[in-house]
């Protein structure tokens, strides 16, 4: 079998030594290690197709991997198999400023993408300060929450090229036709890209993806507002979003805010002391034309809403000097170092996240923090992140549990907390739209028909179940 893999990708692109296999058998989640048979590194979609053909012939699972770091167990081989490491496919294939779109391969990181787009006055719609090695393609496909809720869409995905589990290659949306620019996600046929979003590589291996970009502002102002409770921030955000105010808008509790800023400031304890319980970050940005005029009217409207609702947008919180400039710099220049900001406190963060509406966020936060207390955590060391989506019609809510993965007792404690809290949140109707790892069974058992139809779809796209088996409901 190894020889077959050599023939497909070249000897130097097949890894089967213990060290490599160990590296791919774990990630930053609490999942148990799962050892692959080999790791292969294809360079293009033709080699990916050959690998899938090989997988079908030998009934060997293949697990597509594109980021250099993984958090949720989605890339661990549940049933053994070969890791298809897509990092060699790291080209930005096309930047299209006219239609505000970029075409990327799986190995392109958010950092690399942001740098390349900046040269064209564009920016990606990235999630909250992603890990420097995170794949922009995977993040977009998996629906990681965008920081900018002012657009009506909540994901930037357009069209794609996919190697299906049966080895065939398709292009989704208008990319299938040769008399278009290949941008619009729908038709001909049905809306196939929907099936690959959130699929964790179980229905196809995406070998390139077109995503939206937006104008990278040259003028912008960051505002910060302090709140004691999450629910205190909800109403202001509802109002701000209804009036189309601002670009980036998100809420971090003081633990996450301190974790984010400590790289700059280096004084975590002081930040924890001085920062408010919750901070809303709102960036008002100028458009390409008359940028300062747009900032002016938006700022005026912001202050009007703030006056009505009695909150105070300020240039900083917690007395952090130059916070506005720092925040904008961090947003426009994603970190490129290997040190992930969320892992500065301990060597991992276990995130529990789901979609809900902002008016329910406080109730979930209360549950999460009370569970954390029961498990002996200091609630000041639990992260809370609320990301408004689609003008505030919903939100991504995330609870971040720091965990020292090298400490067995702590790991086990956090694992139990993670499971029990997830169960409770699901029972309280938190919508786990991205059912990773242990969430999958919990989510899919609540929606029998959805699960059954997904399984039927799997049989069509991947008849031999060789694509990342064991994930989702497969």
């Amino acid at each position, binding site marked *: 079998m190894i020889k077959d893999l050599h023939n497909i990708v070249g000897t130097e692109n097949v890894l089967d030594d213990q060290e490599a296999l160990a590296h791919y058998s774990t990630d930053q989640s609490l999942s148990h290690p799962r050892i692959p048979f080999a790791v292969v590194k294809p360079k293009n979609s033709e080699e990916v197709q050959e690998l899938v053909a090989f997988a079908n012939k030998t009934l060997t699972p293949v697990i597509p991997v594109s980021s250099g770091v993984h958090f949720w167990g989605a890339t661990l081989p549940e049933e053994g198999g070969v890791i298809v490491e897509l990092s060699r496919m790291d080209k930005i294939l096309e930047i299209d400023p*006219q*239609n*505000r779109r970029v075409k990327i391969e799986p190995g392109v990181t958010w950092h690399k993408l942001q740098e390349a787009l900046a040269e064209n006055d564009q920016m990606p719609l990235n999630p909250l300060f992603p890990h420097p090695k995170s794949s922009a393609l995977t993040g977009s496909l998996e629906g990681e929450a965008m920081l900018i809720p002012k*657009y*009506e869409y909540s994901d930037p995905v357009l069209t794609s090229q996919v190697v*299906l589990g049966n080895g065939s290659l*398709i*292009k989704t949306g208008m990319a299938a*036709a*040769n*008399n*278009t*620019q290949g*941008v*619009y996600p*729908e*038709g*001909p*046929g*049905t*809306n*196939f*890209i*929907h*099936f690959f*979003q*959130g*699929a*964790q590589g179980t229905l196809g291996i995406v070998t390139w993806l077109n995503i*939206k970009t937006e*104008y990278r502002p040259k003028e912008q102002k960051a505002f910060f507002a302090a709140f004691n409770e999450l629910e205190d921030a909800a109403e202001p955000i509802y109002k701000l979003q*209804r009036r189309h105010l601002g670009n980036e808008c998100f809420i971090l509790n003081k633990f996450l805010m301190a974790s984010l800023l400590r790289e700059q400031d280096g004084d975590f304890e002081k930040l924890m002391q001085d920062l408010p319980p919750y901070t809303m970050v709102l960036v008002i940005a100028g458009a*390409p*034309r008359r940028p300062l*005029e747009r900032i002016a*009217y*938006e700022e*005026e*409207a912001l202050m009007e809403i703030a006056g009505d609702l009695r909150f105070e947008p300020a240039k900083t919180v917690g007395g952090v000097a130059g916070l506005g400039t720092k925040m904008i710099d961090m947003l426009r220049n994603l970190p490129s170092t290997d040190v992930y900001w969320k892992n500065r406190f301990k060597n991992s963060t276990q995130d529990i996240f789901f*979609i*809900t509406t902002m*008016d329910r966020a406080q109730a979930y936060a209360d549950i999460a923090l009370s569970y954390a207390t029961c498990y002996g955590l200091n609630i000041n060391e639990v992260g809370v992140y609320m990301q408004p989506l689609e*003008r505030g*019609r*919903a939100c991504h809510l995330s609870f971040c549990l720091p965990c020292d993965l090298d400490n067995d007792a702590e790991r086990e404690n956090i694992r139990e907390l993670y499971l029990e809290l997830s169960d409770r949140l699901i029972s309280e*109707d938190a*919508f*786990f739209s*991205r*059912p990773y790892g242990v969430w999958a069974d919990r*989510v899919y058992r*609540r*929606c029998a*028909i*959805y699960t059954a*139809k997904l399984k039927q*779809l799997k*049989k069509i*796209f991947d008849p031999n179940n060789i694509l990342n088996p064991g994930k*989702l409901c497969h």
Partner: protein
Amino acid sequence: MDKMERHERHDEILQAFEAAVGVGNVKDSPAVMNAYCGDWLPPKTLGQTKRPEFILMPAGTLEVQRVIKICNRYKIPFVPVGSNQWSMATAPTRPHTVIIDSKRMVDILEIDEKNMYAVIQPYTTMAQLHAEANKRGLYIGSPEASAQSSALAGHTFQGMWGVSYRIGVGARNILGMEWVLPDGEILRTGSLSHTCQSWFWGKGPGPDLKGMLRGYAGALGGVGMVTKMAVKLHPYPGPAEFPAEGYIPNMTSTMPKDRFHWEIIKFDDLEGAATFMYEVGKAEIGGIVHKWPTVYYNWWWANSNEEYWTEWQKRTFQDNLKHAVAVCLWGFTSKKQLEYEKRVLEDIIEDTGGRRIKQDVFDKWVPRAANNWIRDTNGSRMMRPSGTFLCLKLAADTIKSSVDLVKSGYQWVDKFSPPILDSDGPDWIGPYEFCHFGFAETDFPVEKNPEDMADIMNKLLAMTKEDLQHGQENGVGPFLGGPYHAMAGPVFKYDSLLKGIKKAIDPNLVSNPPHNFPIDE
């Protein structure tokens, strides 16, 4: 029209349906069947439709489920029907067809003003939804089919709205759904899959099965019937009640001047108009942007057939509005936003070499027709000049590819005129989602008689086949549904996937065959 042939077990089936939905909600008399043989589009005119055998009016999801299960039991086809205004697929093409008429499912079940969505049933109209949304400082789009059409169906069909410049087409506005599949199972999607109270999110869990419902023109009833749908509503700076002065057909409408402002800017060519639209999108201004063809201006404006053709012969619209782009600025944030956007628009007009149209033409058209693109879109007026209209090319991709497609459409329109009536090079281009996308249509009036319709349809089919041979999508094909997918599937490599999906969820092939894939042919 065909002679109606009854199923050999007609009475037994009738009884089953009466048990499912109630005696008064089932019809099988030939006189009633005649009313459901077609809509305004060609199949009826061309004698391609059949009479259904039963008309059913279920009250909700469970009754729809019962009906569909009965259809599976007897292996008879069903067609789900909304307002039945604008579809090529709601007239039966098979014997013994059951029409599931949604007239009793007419409510807005819920509006969540804070989280901006409404839960609707299949016969809830856009007009109802607009009225309720506007009261709450929210809005939604309206398709060309007009505000009297089904809001739910509009979200599953093409869904090109007057206001899609910001909010996208209907399909991009679907949240949780309750959906009776062709096999009779009830599928709930998005957050609704978890609990029957949570409508707020449309995707997942995991892969989004809503993908089965969509494609450029939707599945045309070939994947069951959606019986409840949550749809996005959007912040609206307009008045609680849509302003209207006078009465139809002389009604005018003027939006508050401190929050809405129309401009119509003319260019020398399509490329100039396209450049302008791209700049407007990049600047993130505007609530409505369209490059309408001159036929549209006359369609929406004229109050009668005579008025249409009289004005057309005067060339009021052809000489003043060719390659013109209409922009309506909306002050979502404040009055100052509107003032800012006016200044930005002025900059763009200057930079792109645009010119305002003559004031008298503006004053003639805007009060009478413009704001219908917010609320009503005047769809039925498109039928007036000749009894119907058709389209040769539709694009759904980018503004640039829309320009290319409509230009390729000009020569086809010329080639087929007559029977295509004078339409001054039809070329509607609508930029969507701040010009990330561009849609186009080459719509034209054509005489509604069987000979001319047959002539055009055959030419359309020939053109589509030729385009497919070159790997090209002309946008018209998807409206033909199943037969088109059978041709296009092998070209674009989705035939086995779509066939597999259809067979999986519709094992007895009862959901409006031959859509969305003709398994039985």
